[in-house]
């Protein structure tokens, strides 16, 4: 409190709110900080504002706050996206279309592409095994992590219960380990 009063006395405003006490005739109205084209119009608007206190709000410019200064960036983004879509559409419509088998081949610097099996070939089953093991031990960790957060409130009962849970999952872990499920090849 004292710091702010001190700063104010020295003519500085802590968060840069404007000219402040040094130039009280400048920057007082909220419309001064917004863009020129987004300002409210003037005396005519003031009169109509006074007349329609309970009316519906037509647009933010009538209230005198100005349009959000980030609106031009959105408009620019919309123009850029529209241009991209227009380019692709115009190319699809106006472009010549001549079929060539090589155009559908993969680009491999001009050589014939390496032959791949149809539909991507068969998937090795080890990926499925890894996914299944991940699910099982992930569920275990889903239980362990909240326990780690609140273990002191659960006291001895929670500890014994958790140990029994871990031992149960450990049996599954030991089985997978000894049966070779953790080998990648």
């Amino acid at each position, binding site marked *: 409190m004292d710091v702010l009063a001190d700063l104010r006395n020295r003519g500085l405003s802590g968060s840069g709110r404007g000219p402040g006490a040094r130039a009280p005739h400048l920057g007082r109205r909220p419309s001064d900080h917004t863009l020129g084209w987004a300002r409210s119009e003037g005396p005519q608007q003031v009169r109509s504002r006074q007349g329609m206190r309970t009316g519906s709000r037509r647009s933010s410019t009538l209230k005198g706050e100005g349009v959000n200064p980030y609106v031009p960036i959105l408009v620019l983004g919309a123009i850029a996206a529209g241009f991209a879509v227009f380019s692709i559409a115009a190319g699809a419509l106006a472009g*010549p279309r001549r079929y060539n088998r090589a155009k559908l081949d993969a*680009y491999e610097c*001009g050589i014939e592409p390496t032959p791949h099996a149809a539909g991507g070939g068969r998937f090795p089953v080890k990926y499925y095994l890894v996914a299944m093991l991940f699910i099982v031990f992930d569920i275990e960790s889903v239980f362990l992590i909240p326990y780690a957060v609140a273990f002191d409130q659960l006291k001895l009962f929670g500890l014994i219960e958790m140990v029994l849970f871990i031992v149960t999952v450990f049996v599954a872990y030991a089985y997978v380990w000894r049966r070779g499920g953790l080998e990648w090849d």
Partner: protein
Amino acid sequence: MGIEEKLPSGFLLTTVEQIAGYMRKSSLWPATFGLACCAIEMMTTGGPRYDLGRFGMEVFRGSPRQADLMIVAGRVSQKMAPVLRQIYDQMVEPKWVLSMGVCASSGGMFNNYAIVQGVDHLVPVDIYLPGCPPRPEMLINAILELHDQIQHAPLGVHRRRVAEAAERAALEAVPTSQMKGLLR
């Protein structure tokens, strides 16, 4: 041209062919096919002194799918021939080929079994550029000639009629073997 004078100022008239030709020739993107010494000259032409960037051509695309112009710069060996043809096939229409240097145009000084005697054995060539190697100014001249060709290329039905007329003229022309008066 008569209509343009009668309209108020600020109106320009053009045809679809002219506009499409203008748009095709500006920023024609070349595909890198520098094989030998002519590639050095092509690189120089892309450099700051002889600038290809002023035509919008400083981007030599690595992928043929994004390229319009294939500048075959250098000698094409028999081993490289299918690669050249595959790259040409993978380019998207509209595409043009500029054969740069004498080796690409006709086999050059390598009149042997290892070098393809002119890339027009492999791909249809739009403009030939002789030189061993051609100077960058010569390459720019060839590119400007190609630009003229692209700007004035007919489109659509007009193109088919022009092609048919050219075929008819070629079929009815006097064969070179029957031309008298040449040094034969």
